[in-house]
């Protein structure tokens, strides 16, 4: 996020850092959470924000579309106001609040759109090379070559390996999932606009992805897969009269995608928290004297560099792990289909 800018400012102007009174809660959750506007940076005490459209549907007054700038400071607009959790609620005449249907283009949605656009551009540009060249006669170089290497690594080492014979049907989804997660993870590490939105560290995002894997596993699962769940090869007393193992298996159907969801979410969120915490040290020690502040600033910058590099690794690993486990789950649902 703005931490790199913050680091520079803090190093060059410790006085500026003194002037900041850091509210840790707002700082951390403001950065990893979602919001109606995108706070890009603050210049001379004036926040520089991108105002995003708020789209809400009230049960009583219907659709409302307005800019987030009207509600950012906590004022009410068209009967809507932010509550303590930062969510938009509708004020009722009797003083109570109601939750409207809220499909606003929030910070995460905008980040998602930008990242998706980047992803689509990258992949389509790569695909364009293959349309324009005879790939049987020459191999791509440069960026296309890198993309080919990544794509074929996922395709050959993960998808083909884990799913087996009919991997072709799943390969577009798994490749999309891999690059979607990878691009969003990387963009999350970029500290300035349009990066920095904590997208893959948001549970709604990972939930959708896990749901896709759940559908891919269960909708296309073969007979053997369902037999293994409902009538597994275990002693009969484990199935009748109390269907112990089937119950466990059915729970397993849901825990697998659930673990996918939580793993990605928690890893990315934790990475963001770590980075933010490391940077926060600079601001928190600002009041403790210039010596301590300077010393800890140096340490936190060094540690921040280390964390950033680690996060780059995590960005790749989590995308890889999600794809691999999805492939494994899909592969399990396709077992014995050929025998």
């Amino acid at each position, binding site marked *: 996020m703005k931490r790199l800018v913050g680091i520079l400012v803090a190093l060059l102007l410790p006085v500026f850092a003194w002037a900041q009174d850091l509210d840790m809660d707002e700082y951390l959750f403001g950065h990893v959470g979602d919001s109606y506007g995108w706070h890009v940076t603050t210049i001379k005490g004036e926040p520089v924000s991108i105002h995003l459209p708020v789209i809400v549907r009230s049960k009583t007054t219907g659709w409302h579309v307005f800019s987030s700038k009207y509600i950012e400071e906590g004022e009410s607009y068209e009967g809507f106001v932010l509550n303590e959790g930062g969510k938009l609620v509708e004020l009722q005449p009797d003083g109570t609040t109601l939750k409207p249907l809220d499909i606003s283009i*929030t910070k995460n949605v905008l980040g998602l759109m930008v990242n998706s656009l980047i992803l689509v551009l990258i992949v389509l540009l*790569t695909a364009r090379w293959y349309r324009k060249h005879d*790939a049987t006669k020459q191999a791509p170089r440069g960026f296309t070559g890198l993309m080919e290497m990544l*794509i074929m690594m996922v395709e050959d080492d993960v998808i083909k390996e884990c799913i087996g014979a009919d991997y072709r049907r799943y390969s577009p989804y798994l*490749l999309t999932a891999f690059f979607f997660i990878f691009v969003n993870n990387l963009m999350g590490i970029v500290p300035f606009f349009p990066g920095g939105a904590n997208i893959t560290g948001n549970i*709604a995002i990972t*939930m959708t992805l896990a749901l896709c894997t759940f559908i891919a596993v269960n909708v296309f699962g073969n007979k053997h897969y369902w037999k293994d769940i409902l009538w597994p090869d275990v002693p009969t007393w484990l199935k009748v009269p109390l269907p112990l193992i089937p119950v466990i298996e059915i729970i397993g159907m849901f825990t697998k995608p659930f673990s996918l969801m939580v793993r990605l979410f928690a890893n990315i969120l934790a990475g963001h928290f770590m980075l933010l915490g490391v940077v926060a040290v600079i601001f928190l020690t600002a009041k403790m004297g210039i010596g301590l502040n300077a010393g800890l600033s140096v340490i936190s910058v060094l540690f921040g560099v280390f964390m950033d590099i680690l996060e780059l690794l995590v960005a790749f690993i989590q995308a890889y792990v999600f794809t691999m486990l999805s492939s494994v789950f899909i592969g399990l649902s396709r077992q014995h289909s050929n025998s």
Partner: protein
Amino acid sequence: MSLITPDFGLLFWMTLIFAVVFFILAKFGFPIITGMVEKRSDRIDESLRKAEEAEKALAEMDERRQQILSDAKAEQARILREASATSDSIVSKAQDKAKEEASKILEQARIEIAAEKESALRDIRRVVATLSVEVAEKVLRADLDEDEKQGAYLDRLIDEVQRSQDKS
């Protein structure tokens, strides 16, 4: 906004955006790339296989060439050997024939010479006999004109005969 409760708005947009991204990439992105790369790797495999085949064929050809060469050499040696044997036999045969012929001619010549000698001897004998008879006739005719001489002569002849009988 809470961290662990999925927000409906974000779920909605995420589903929409991911569906669109998936549709675009699954239709125009990844299958094209993976398909082309697969085609290329197939082609590389094919080329490698062909190269191996060509190499095998080349080795086979080399072997055959080697085989032909050694066969030719053996053939050449055999022909040479046969030729020399033939020539030897021809020469020896010719020699034998020549010797035979020569001996035949010699034999013939010897026989002819013998015959000639015989006839020559016979002629000489005849001539000598005729001559001696004629000479004897003439001598006898001349000597026997006188009686005395006749008697002397007869005596001598008888003596001679007697002597020759005594000798034998």
